[in-house]
């Protein structure tokens, strides 16, 4: 890893092994759609997600990694992360559907046929705009709320996480203007794709990714976003900004006394977290083709927070693993487990129905057995096992 060398340098060989493993996993993920459709036996297929489900798993992993900027690095407990998911989703609705049919037909690289009413920008552009919009919203929410600390901040962010869906639900008549289509949400949102024009020039690049075969493209887009998020995390962690975040997490007052501008630095972490939350929300919506206020429940915020905690707060690889694992369990694993359970015991229990019970028990067990997460950051390990290690520290009487 470049930048700051690890405090207890691991043997070079181990480092190389880890790198090799990460590379291997990445290649496997890259060719997964192909493996899934060509080589997997039915037994495995039952347990492995299809490409569309794998897409959702990756997109949620991006959410986990995004929240890690806020919770993991800067130590700000955000219980309303779903707000940014919602922001991204609605930008997709606004800029790539027939929501604003009154505006006539504005098609700029969109994936729809000419003449379709409404605004249809290129979905790539929509993705970027969604991320930036969510980031701005993050800054806007962050500036007043991040003055609060600890539990107070958690409560206020929880509030914002609830306010946004409410606003969306009631936003069908803002002074007579239908912004959000209310409780019905938005439907008929365009798929991600290269657009009509590109498709007609290069036929290998699909116009949109919505048909079964082209769902691979969705998957790859999400995978690319995961990589971008991981790289951003790593680069920022080993920089002046990353150090300031961790310093704030460690001791806010001391950080301020050392010249770290608290508000600016905290807002930046919140903004970057929101950026990726918005991107993920937009991407998921472009695939689903619709969105509604019901999709933005507190459970989503908690779910994403669990990824960060499960994986190992502050550790990029841990959070990636936590995200993949938890999203897998939620979108595939539980169904598969339920199916296997029922066919084995001849029962008819709807296991996914009990997901929150299962998660609750799992979280409690996890906190008891391995509170530092699956792959904790070395820092975090240092914190949680402080007592044990302190016994080994022999006070010195060396001179100043």
């Amino acid at each position, binding site marked *: 890893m470049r930048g700051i060398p690890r405090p207890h340098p691991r043997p070079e060989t181990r480092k190389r092994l880890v790198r090799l493993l990460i590379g291997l996993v990445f290649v496997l993920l890259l060719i997964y759609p192909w493996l899934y459709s060509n080589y997997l036996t039915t037994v495995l297929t039952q347990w492995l997600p299809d490409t569309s489900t794998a897409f959702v798993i990756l997109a949620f992993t991006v959410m986990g990694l995004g929240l890690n900027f806020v919770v993991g690095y800067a130590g700000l407990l955000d219980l309303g992360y779903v707000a940014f998911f919602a922001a991204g989703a609605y930008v997709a609705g606004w800029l790539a559907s027939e929501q604003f049919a009154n505006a006539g037909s504005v098609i700029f690289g969109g994936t729809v046929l000419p003449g379709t009413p409404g605004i249809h920008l290129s979905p790539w552009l929509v993705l970027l705009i969604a991320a930036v919009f969510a980031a701005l919203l993050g800054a806007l929410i962050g500036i007043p709320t991040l003055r609060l600390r600890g539990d107070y901040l958690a409560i206020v962010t929880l509030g914002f996480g609830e306010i946004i869906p409410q606003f969306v639900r009631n936003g069908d008549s803002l002074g007579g203007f239908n912004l959000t289509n209310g409780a019905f949400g938005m439907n008929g949102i365009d798929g991600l794709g290269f657009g009509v024009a590109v498709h007609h020039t290069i036929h290998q690049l699909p116009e949109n990714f919505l048909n079964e075969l082209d769902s691979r493209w969705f998957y790859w887009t999400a995978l690319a976003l995961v990589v971008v998020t991981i790289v951003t995390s790593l680069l920022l962690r080993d920089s002046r900004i990353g150090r300031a975040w961790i310093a704030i997490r*460690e001791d806010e*007052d001391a950080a301020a006394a050392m*010249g*770290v501008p608290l508000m600016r630095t905290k807002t930046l972490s919140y903004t970057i977290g929101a950026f990726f939350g918005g991107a993920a929300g937009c991407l998921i919506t472009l695939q689903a083709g619709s969105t509604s206020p019901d999709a933005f429940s507190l459970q989503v915020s908690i779910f994403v927070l669990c990824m960060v905690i499960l994986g190992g707060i502050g550790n990029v690889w841990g959070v990636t693993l936590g995200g993949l694992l938890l999203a897998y369990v939620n979108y595939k694993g539980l169904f598969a487990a339920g199916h296997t359970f029922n066919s084995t015991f001849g029962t008819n229990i709807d296991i996914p129905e009990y997901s929150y019970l299962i998660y609750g028990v799992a979280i409690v067990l996890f906190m008891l057995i391995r509170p530092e997460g699956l792959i904790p950051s070395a820092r975090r390990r240092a914190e949680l096992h402080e007592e044990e290690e302190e016994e080994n520290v022999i006070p010195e009487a060396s001179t100043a």
Partner: protein
Amino acid sequence: MSADALVDARSVRKEFGGLVACSDIDFTVERGSIASLIGPNGAGKTTFFNMLTGAYTPTAGEIVFDGRDIVGLPQHKITALGIGRTFQNIRLFGAMTARENVLVGMHSRLSSGLFGSLLRTPRQRHEEREGRAQARDLLAYCGVPARAEHQYARHLSYGDQRRVEVARALATDPKLLLLDEPTAGMNPRETTAFVEFVRRVRDERGLTVLLIEHDMRVVVEVSERVTVLDYGEKIAEGTPDEVTADERVRSAYLGTKPVA
């Protein structure tokens, strides 16, 4: 007051609810001097420090630092103007290495931002390299052993933690160094070495040093000027000899009257 005052505080007052922690204190520190602030526990010394660094805003009064009124400025701006501090109870960033702690101290001296860090521009890389080298030098200067550089601060010995904290404060490139009970918990040998160190820092780096100190030996030995607070009020000021001879100080501080 003195024409060359680095710090010039006038009628500084701090109230917490009904409690007057600092009552209309006039206080100056001359540029290039080593000064001490002493007084019994609860006399308002740390409160005064916190007002100097901007952690607290005075209820009334003004504080001029280096020709600028700093009342109401946020902490990071005051740090950038040139006030660095250590804390009474060591407050290092425990889960950061010694070197990272010092690098955080350099925050306001470094400039790379979001895009520089993401793009790893030549400027950013150069700055990081320079910063790391400087941090290493500072740690060595403060007597932190080289092997401690990459250890997490919370795993360091008590003495090393104190030294890293001083290095971190120096990393802010201060004009005024505030040390809040720096010798607390040090043995006599370490204390003697520290007194030497404070002088050296002042002479070599052209700093002004203000200490809060309980150890009267240290105070008498190192300071050129001593200010005594008691119950939030300034009760004496002068050279160490003058102050230790002062009747009010003797009764308030040196323990001739029952401990409050």
